[in-house]
């Protein structure tokens, strides 16, 4: 008990920093325990023993109740210092030991100094067991924290104690609904610093098996009606999974209207594709390139059985599907193909650019020029950051801890065909779906991560270089002098007020480009986990590591 008193006294200043009253309570409490030891050595009587029991057992009881009774405060606890957590456990173990000694002492009712050694003899084994079990639990808890990160910090559960003990005592449902459910091993996102966990549909939790199957499917041309294209045909890893073309061409030669988007951190996209407020899940988006007929992309429609049969006859796929979807007796079907592709695309996380290393503290990661460009990028003069904000450089971002919708779409003044704001037919942004005038020319702001690799730019690939993109925003829109698309985009009535133009000199333009280039993540575009598994080159890369 003296030990517990000392621990309480030692953590008292930390609590004093929060609220004085609590620190003082710990001071009194710790002092009282030490005084009690002195008193017990002098007067070994039943009332004194009972006070000791109350001190130790009562405290443990209250500590347990703390976890057993739901508290309105628990959701917004600040992170505790680790050392405090440890000290709390140590003090409770010591309290447990003391109580285990004192309870038999009280029960055996022999208030004499001679008897004291007998009580200790009777109590010692119990005390050993209490301390031993407690220490064991503590070690298991501490190790499981590193072995099973799901126990560790997640939204609303700031300390490992809360993660472990509260669900166990009062809310088993909390943990079962977490990512542990349905998986033998939780998926390891390997998220960059500052990236929150992505939002994942409940019916398609991430697994390494699905991601790996999705990777094979992503690179497999057999997933097109005529066997000529794969997802990779328009999403090339070295180009951050864009394709370098103005607009792509489908598997049957049909031209597409919109620029092939980079697949960078799409797990965080609030909405998918260029302009569809209602399309929020990859599982639904992926149906478009596979089955779409207007235009045809992979062209699987009316070749469904043929495509599935190719995978059934393959030597590798039946086993991979069975492993990825163990509960499905006939796993080679389009639902599972889509789920596996979605899992792979979700795994394409990029957050290891020079900019990220700079933010993490490596001040040498950015050149002087890029640093000047960064200040320009985040300035009120340029306004870039209003739409390209946050860790993923887009306002259109959601994650597991998001509490609000974030479907953002803006008109950036590319066209103005009729002076009333019209965009070219078929490419009018959200207007194509809603028909509302104010949705004319509104498109989702894409992430700027790896943007230097994803030229040409804009929803229709109509701007070739980053420098021209900057000039577009400097002018506050685009003027097209002649041709079918002639018009002054600067005067588009639906243009975002944030695209109001600014002035930069040559050096500042170069600085801004240097900053945008610092968002290129070389490890992402060379990561063997994301590479073509059918190419030997990729396999060699894995072997080299």
């Amino acid at each position, binding site marked *: 008990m003296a030990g517990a008193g000392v621990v309480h006294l030692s953590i008292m200043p930390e609590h004093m920093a929060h609220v004085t009253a609590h620190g003082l309570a710990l001071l009194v409490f710790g002092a009282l325990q030490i005084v009690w030891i002195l008193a017990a050595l002098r007067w070994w009587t039943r*009332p004194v023993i009972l006070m000791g029991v109350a001190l130790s057992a009562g405290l443990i009881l209250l500590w347990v109740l703390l976890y057993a009774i739901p508290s309105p405060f628990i959701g917004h606890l600040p992170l505790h210092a680790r050392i405090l957590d440890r000290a709390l456990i140590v003090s409770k173990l010591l309290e447990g030991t003391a109580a285990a000694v004192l309870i038999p002492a009280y029960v055996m009712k022999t208030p004499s100094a001679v008897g004291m050694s007998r009580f200790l003899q009777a109590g010692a084994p119990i005390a050993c067991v209490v301390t031993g079990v407690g220490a064991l639990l503590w070690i298991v808890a501490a190790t499981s924290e590193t072995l099973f990160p799901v126990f560790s910090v997640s939204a609303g559960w700031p300390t490992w104690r809360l993660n472990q003990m509260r669900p166990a005592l009062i809310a088993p449902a909390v943990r079962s609904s977490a990512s542990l459910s349905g998986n033998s091993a939780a998926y390891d996102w390997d998220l960059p610093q500052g990236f929150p966990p992505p939002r994942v549909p409940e019916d398609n939790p991430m697994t390494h098996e699905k991601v790996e199957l999705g990777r094979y499917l992503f690179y497999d041309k057999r997933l097109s009606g005529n066997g000529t294209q794969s997802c990779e045909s328009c999403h090339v890893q070295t180009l951050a999974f864009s394709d370098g073309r103005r607009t792509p061409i489908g598997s049957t030669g049909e031209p597409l209207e919109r620029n092939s988007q980079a697949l960078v951190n799409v797990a965080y996209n609030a909405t998918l594709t260029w302009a569809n407020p209602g399309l929020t899940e990859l599982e639904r988006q992926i149906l478009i390139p596979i089955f779409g007929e207007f235009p045809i992309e992979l062209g699987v429609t009316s070749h469904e059985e043929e495509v599935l049969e190719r995978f059934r006859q393959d030597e590798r796929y039946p086993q991979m599907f069975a492993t990825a979807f163990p509960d499905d007796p006939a796993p080679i079907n389009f639902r599972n193909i889509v789920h596996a592709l979605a899992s792979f695309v979700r795994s394409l996380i990029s957050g290891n650019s020079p900019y990220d290393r700079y933010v993490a503290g490596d001040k040498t990661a950015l050149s002087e020029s890029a640093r000047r460009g960064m200040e320009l990028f985040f300035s009120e003069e340029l306004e870039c950051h209003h739409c390209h904000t946050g860790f993923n450089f887009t306002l259109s971002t959601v994650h597991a801890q998001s509490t*609000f919708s974030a479907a953002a779409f803006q008109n950036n003044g590319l066209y103005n065909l009729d002076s009333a704001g019209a965009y070219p037919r078929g490419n009018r942004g959200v207007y194509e779906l809603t028909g509302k005038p104010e949705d004319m020319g509104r498109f989702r702001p894409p992430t700027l991560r790896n943007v230097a690799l994803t030229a040409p730019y804009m929803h229709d690939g109509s701007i070739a270089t980053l420098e021209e993109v900057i000039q577009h925003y400097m002018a506050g829109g685009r003027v097209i002098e002649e041709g079918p698309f002639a018009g002054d985009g*600067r005067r588009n009535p639906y243009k975002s007020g944030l695209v109001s133009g600014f002035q930069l000199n040559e050096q500042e333009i170069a600085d801004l480009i240097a900053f945008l280039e610092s968002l290129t993540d070389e490890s992402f575009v060379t990561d063997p986990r994301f590479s073509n598994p059918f190419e030997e080159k990729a396999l060699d890369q894995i072997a080299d590591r």
Partner: protein
Amino acid sequence: MRIHIFASAALICMLGLAACQPIQAPTEPSTTLDKPQPVAINFAMKVRDREARCGEVYEGLGASGSPVEINDMRFYISNVRLVNDKGAETPVELEQDGLWQVENVALLDFEDATAGCAETGTPEMNVGIRGIVAEQTFVCPECEPTAILFDLGVPFDLNHLDVTAAPSPLNIPAMWWNWQIGYKFARIDLKTDAAATEGAWFIHLGSTGCSSSDKNTPPEKPCMRPNVVSVRLDNFDVTKKVVVADIASLVAAVDLSESTPQPAGCMSGPDDPDCAILFPAGFGLDIATGACAEEGCPTQRFFRVE
């Protein structure tokens, strides 16, 4: 003797409880409320006497009598207190709802992401705050509630969080600049007849003069110009009255047909000509110091009681 023992045991249990408290709620205020009562304070966003809505055009605003459409209307308030006629001032302890209110900060959101508000808005709206307050503040038999006090803004210790990791409602990227400057305390995006900026007239209120090594680093010391508006509204009976934020009176002295670009409108820049009139005449702030132009910002014209 036995009573003695029980008394000691009870005392010890109470101490134990006190000792456990810091684990549970280290940031809770230590004030104890006498018979705490739930309280809901209603807000409204108006343009004169009309409800402010996305997609509607309001005529005759500002010194220029400009037509105005609203593209965003959200603001953070903090440190809400109620006062009765005995002069007793009691803080409203906000319910921690995990969505609109955290610590002593609440977000009021009057845009619904329709029409022009779709550019940066959210469909979710919030037109009031909820919390608890000491009973005697407004239901004591012989006293009358007389005033409400609050700050338009986010206190420094919560103003420079990482928007990605911050608790709701401090997790909205559209209401955040960067680590260095922190949050947009108020975001009122207008579309007017200002030709120079294609009609754009933004009002983004936030701290300025925040020093750190760069925009990705939070400052260690409070910003030079906090630009937090302390609001006191008299004749406020929480059960009968509504706090009205009126865009028309906020911009009454401002020429909305003019705006210097970079940026369009006023984004709190101390040398932005668009802020020069809006700050003192609308928010009651001294633009040079970032403090109230007069003690208690009595010249603010954004809020009133109805």
